[in-house]
């Protein structure tokens, strides 16, 4: 599979979705895209023609506002047709403003942060109880780790030795209103996850699919849940949004940014 092409197509779909609806979470969608591509196209054992296949790996998007990235990847993977992008945010649609299980391929209906990882703990615990071998992947934001419930889940996962649970943190350094560590310092971030009993890896190139996949494949320790902290760039691929660390875009800024992003995408 040509993952470069997948990435190009998905980035293009994100721009399509933003343009179609005139508003969206550009920042977190463009930072997390490569994480989702790694999971859905390389790492996780999933079947888009049979989304509820019992032996599938489960992928939980805890930062459920990254809808544009998620819908782009799900459509690219074949869970639904891209022609359905127009239904996103429309009244009565099952393609919602935070990802929900009504959309094929989505495992958890998120929104309020800090719960997807806990839900994933439940999935991982259930798999252990049933002696099933599928894996659970949860994708979090770094700002989300301000939530106390993330650390309740972190304790739970290591206490119960949930080595079938993998989380990837989209470490894009910015929350809605500024620098994550300036708001509430998460450092030493990697050491904190280690201290909570997780086998943890930090990767510099978090917007590179192969780096994420390599990290997810490279875990070694039995009995420990796994954490990848992926250093990413918010609004990756659209410099005029990157420099402003935007969370959401709308209006002229959206139109101009999409133009810039598409131009750079063609040049890649």
């Amino acid at each position, binding site marked *: 599979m040509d993952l470069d092409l997948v990435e190009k197509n998905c980035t293009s779909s994100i721009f399509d979705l933003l343009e179609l609806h005139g508003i969206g979470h550009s920042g977190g969608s463009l930072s997390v895209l490569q994480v989702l591509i790694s999971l859905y196209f390389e790492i996780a054992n999933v079947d888009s023609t049979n989304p509820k296949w019992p032996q599938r790996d489960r992928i939980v998007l805890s930062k459920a506002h990254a809808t544009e990235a998620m819908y782009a990847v799900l459509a690219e993977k074949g869970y639904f047709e891209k022609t359905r992008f127009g239904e996103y945010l429309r009244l009565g649609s099952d393609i919602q403003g935070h990802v*929900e*299980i009504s959309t094929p391929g989505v*495992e*958890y*209906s*998120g*929104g*309020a942060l*800090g*719960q997807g990882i*806990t*839900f*994933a*703990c*439940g*999935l*991982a*615990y*259930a*798999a*252990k*109880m*049933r002696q099933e071998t599928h894996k659970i992947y949860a994708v979090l934001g770094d700002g989300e780790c301000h939530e*106390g*419930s993330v650390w*309740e*889940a972190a*304790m*739970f996962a290591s*206490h119960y030795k949930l080595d079938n649970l993998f989380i990837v943190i989209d470490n894009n350094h910015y929350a809605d209103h500024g620098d994550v560590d300036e708001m509430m310092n998460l450092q030493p971030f990697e050491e904190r996850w280690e201290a909570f009993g997780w086998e943890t890896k930090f990767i510099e190139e978090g917007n590179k699919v192969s780096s994420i996949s390599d990290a997810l494949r490279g875990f070694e320790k039995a009995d420990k849940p796994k954490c990848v902290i992926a250093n990413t760039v918010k609004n990756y691929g659209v410099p005029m949004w990157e420099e402003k660390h935007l969370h959401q875009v709308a209006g002229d800024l959206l139109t101009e940014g999409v133009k810039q992003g598409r131009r750079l995408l063609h040049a890649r």
Partner: protein
Amino acid sequence: MLDKIELGKMREAYADTVIELAKTDPDIVFVSVDCGSHEREFFRKEGKGRLIEVGIAEANSAVVAAGMASEGFKPHVLNFAYLIERMYNQISQSIAQDSYDVKIAAYYAGIWGIGGRSHNCIIDLSMMRALPNFTIFTPADYWETKAIVKKANSINTPTYVRLSGVPTPQVFEKEPDFSPVRVMENGDSCTIFCHGTMVHESLMANKLGDLNAHIVNVSQIKPLPKQEILKEARKTGKVIVVEEHSKIGGLAEAISSLIIENEPMPMKAIGVDDIYPLSVLMEEPDVYKYYGISSEDIIKTVDSITGYENRPANFFSSYNSNTGD
């Protein structure tokens, strides 16, 4: 029924029943938040991971349970009623929204408890009623708790069971069949809808005050059994709702909406004011009176709605409202 008051613990009936159900259903797991008694011990001994202790982490308990339910397990989650507040967003987003089969039971609901204002919870029904997809039950005693826990377990969507934390008077002699609405005593002066501990209090008021009231135990608060409630209200044309709960958001508000929208008739509510209840010892005699939900309050309210004016001024000094003697 009220000649001799026997006490029973709803909390114990809950534990016994969950154990009974779990013996034949391996998908039942118990999610503990540093909580539980012999049911916790049962699941611990069963092994195979069926006791899921999350530690003192309420938020986590609700969402772990949701995850387990999404994989086909039937998690029973037990906690203090006041801690529903601590789990509320988790219950809403992770359990209610996708209607996962999580069985929540909460004890120490109501005004009783040494814990004081932080621990005594009279707003749990207000919170839980507001959540779509939940079915809500309020057992009246030990025996009805058994029937209700079984009923809740048989439903494949989220349920909430409200339990008192202290021994409560028995109003049933044995485990009844589940019924969302049950006529406890027939009468024609007015219809008293009540739930939980207030079923006994209403029966006592009926006897002591010679009220001839129509006493109806509402065991299912949501979905509200509307037609049954209207039918029982219609029999007397006057309605009183009694509950050990805040006047805001409980059964009284549910029934008043129903009555106003369908068949307006005189109605009064007996409940706890908009306050945080204080610490109280079990031995304290006049707790219900202190909060305005005693048999005496019920008798006075019935008199006011029926227009009865011949009760002697010294009537309430002639009986002990706590024991019924």
